[in-house]
């Protein structure tokens, strides 16, 4: 009889509704109440420093090449001590899709995603982050990596004194 199956369906549906009325709601009262995303959450991007406090970013342009929406731009330059660095570095967060490809491409662990998802501005130009807005004081998620120590060229230490390096060759030596 269809009338009985209809009543059964209504009662089952109502039962589900009543059941949830008595449970604790899952809705969070944002912004009064905030949730802590996991550390690997992909939101606002930062530029980190190496353990010695030097800027990690060497302006290699890999993140800007990897970015599918082309929202990173920069100009590389050379410091007096030979370090390559970003003269300016800009991320357009109004365009960023927080895919994390930039952080994945970065060979120096400079660019990292943070769980700070609250990026909301009244003026869209405020979403254009410059280097000074991006650069933080810490190492971010990796406490130890220092690119120049492993780079194998004499920047930030004398030639041949980096990790995995032998002392420079004596070209004029005669020993085989």
């Amino acid at each position, binding site marked *: 009889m269809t009338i009985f199956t209809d009543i059964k369906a209504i009662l089952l549906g109502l039962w589900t509704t009543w059941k949830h009325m008595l449970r604790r709601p899952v809705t969070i009262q944002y912004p009064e109440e905030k949730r802590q995303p996991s550390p690997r959450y992909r939101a606002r991007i930062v530029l980190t420093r190496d353990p010695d406090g030097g800027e990690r970013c060497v302006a290699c342009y890999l993140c800007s090449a990897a970015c599918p929406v082309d929202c990173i731009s920069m100009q*590389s330059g050379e410091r007096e001590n030979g370090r390559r660095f970003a003269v300016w570095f*800009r991320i357009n967060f109004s365009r960023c899709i927080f895919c994390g490809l930039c952080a994945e491409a970065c060979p120096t662990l400079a660019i990292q995603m943070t769980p700070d998802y609250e990026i909301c501005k009244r003026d869209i130009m405020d979403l254009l982050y410059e*280097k000074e807005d991006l650069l933080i004081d810490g190492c971010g998620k990796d406490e130890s990596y220092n690119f120049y120590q492993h780079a194998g060229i004499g920047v930030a230490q004398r030639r041949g004194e980096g990790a995995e390096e032998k002392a420079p060759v004596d070209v004029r030596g005669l020993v085989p």
Partner: protein
Amino acid sequence: MPKLIIDDITVEVAEGVTVLEAAQSVDIPIPHFCWHPALGKAGACRVCAVKLLDGPIKGIQMSCMLPAQDGMVVSTVDPEAVAMRQQVIEWLMINHPHDCPVCDEGGQCQLQDYTIACGHGLRRYDGKKRTHLNQDLGPNIEHEMNRCIQCYRCARFYQEFAGGTDFGVMGSASRVYFGRFEDGELQSPFSGNLVDICPTGVFTDKTARFRARYWDFDMAPSICPECSLGCNTTPVARYRELLKISARHNDAVNGWFICDRGRFADKKVNSFDRPRVPLVNGSSSGWGDAVDAVAKKAAEFAPGSIAVVASSRLANEGAALLPDLARALSGAKLCFFSNEVICRASITAASQITPHMAASLDDVASADCIVIYECDLRQEAPMMLLAVRQAWRKGAPVFLVGKGAPLEQAAAVSVEAVDLDIIVEAPIGIFDRPVIIFSTMRSSAAEIKNLMAAEAKFAPLFDGPNGMGMAKLAAANSTISLESAVKSGLIKGIITIECVIADELRGEIPIIAALDWQMNSSVKNAGVFLPTTAWVEMNGTFVNNEGRAQQFKKVMAPGIPVSATLESGHPPRIHSLDVPGGEPKPAWEVITEIMKRL
């Protein structure tokens, strides 16, 4: 003609061609470092391994060392050959630093490409790496020896191809070092080619150090504007700034290389004092008003009293319009050359030479006798000197005729030349393919006529990138040199088109208008100034010294470099469709605008 099979494709090649080249001819790429089309083989890198499955030779072989033979069956994909290449790359990478992010070669690096192509992705060796001390090689070239993979290309180019003596290879075993005996600027006028020829980042262009990556470059095929040879180049720009210039391959002209003058020339295009807006009496104005002002001023002059003066910097597109402009200015005098002697010499050379008589750089390199008549190629046409060296390496004698042809030019490329006083002493008649090189800036029209009576090919040199084009146009239209125009006393006003006029020559004659992209005395003294685009900012054509018309393409749009517009450290945060400093237009466009208002 040997016929062989490479990866199931039948290939027929000329005698003596290597298996590597045979494979390239049917688009089968084989990784290689030491082999280079201009330098040939060395067998140093061992990365071009292929397997010969059948035929006169069998087993793993180096394809660059092996001349193709009839009946060979070659496989580039045989597992043994693939494994060999992979392992060779792994050895080459053992000492290579981990510094691609801070290496300017990154993105256009043969070592990167072939490492990936050969399938070596993960480093297994965790021992320590050999390191070297670098040298200061002068203001143009950066040295990072840790990156070297010992392919010997640099030393072979520098010493054998270019005849340089101050750079080479030292040390033994894994200590092999490529550099100078001590720090110092490289002496060869072709040293910049080390940047292009090194397959990794040992030599990089210091003038564009740490500026941009290959995938962001604005590039287009272009022509060198520094002398009349018209070497093919690829200028590189980024953020409205010309960064560097590299060689572009053209077998008939410059081959694979260019000279240091062309490569490291002052980048005047970026210059801060470059005039970029139209000026009327020194104050900036819109295009419309400025062109009106030219037309108004020109109307004040009597017919025939204006001289339109151009130089061989001007591309053919603009130059070809000048006869019409002169007519529209009611019979203005047309001057394609300032100096009377150079004017006559250029016109004589350009009108006497036929395509059959003109020697390209390739013809010079394959000549069996070279005569350099009264000119110094180091100043006037450096790449010609490199071509002369190639001819000399194949046995051609080199004669330097006259006081204007100093022996030092031959020494610059380690060529042993014979110094002669007069041309008749050179035994041109006994050779099959002699080439006579002369300059329209040093020899008179009579001398050139005399020279060109010889049974030989000729390589005339002109005073700028479009010298031949201007001379041809000058011959085909009624033109005179500015010198004789001024002497006639008829000239009361001058319009200059990409041209500087010596103050002594001009005297009191006012410059009505100047079209140019560089700051110079003509621009400073002009009543009206109209900014034109430089060669990298437009499409155009130059006719080189042998009469070869070559197109150059627009590399970048005109505008003030972004690096000069920074506000508190970063580019301006405003939107605008107008490019700052984007006013310049190609000369032909400006000339057309002026003609429309006359």
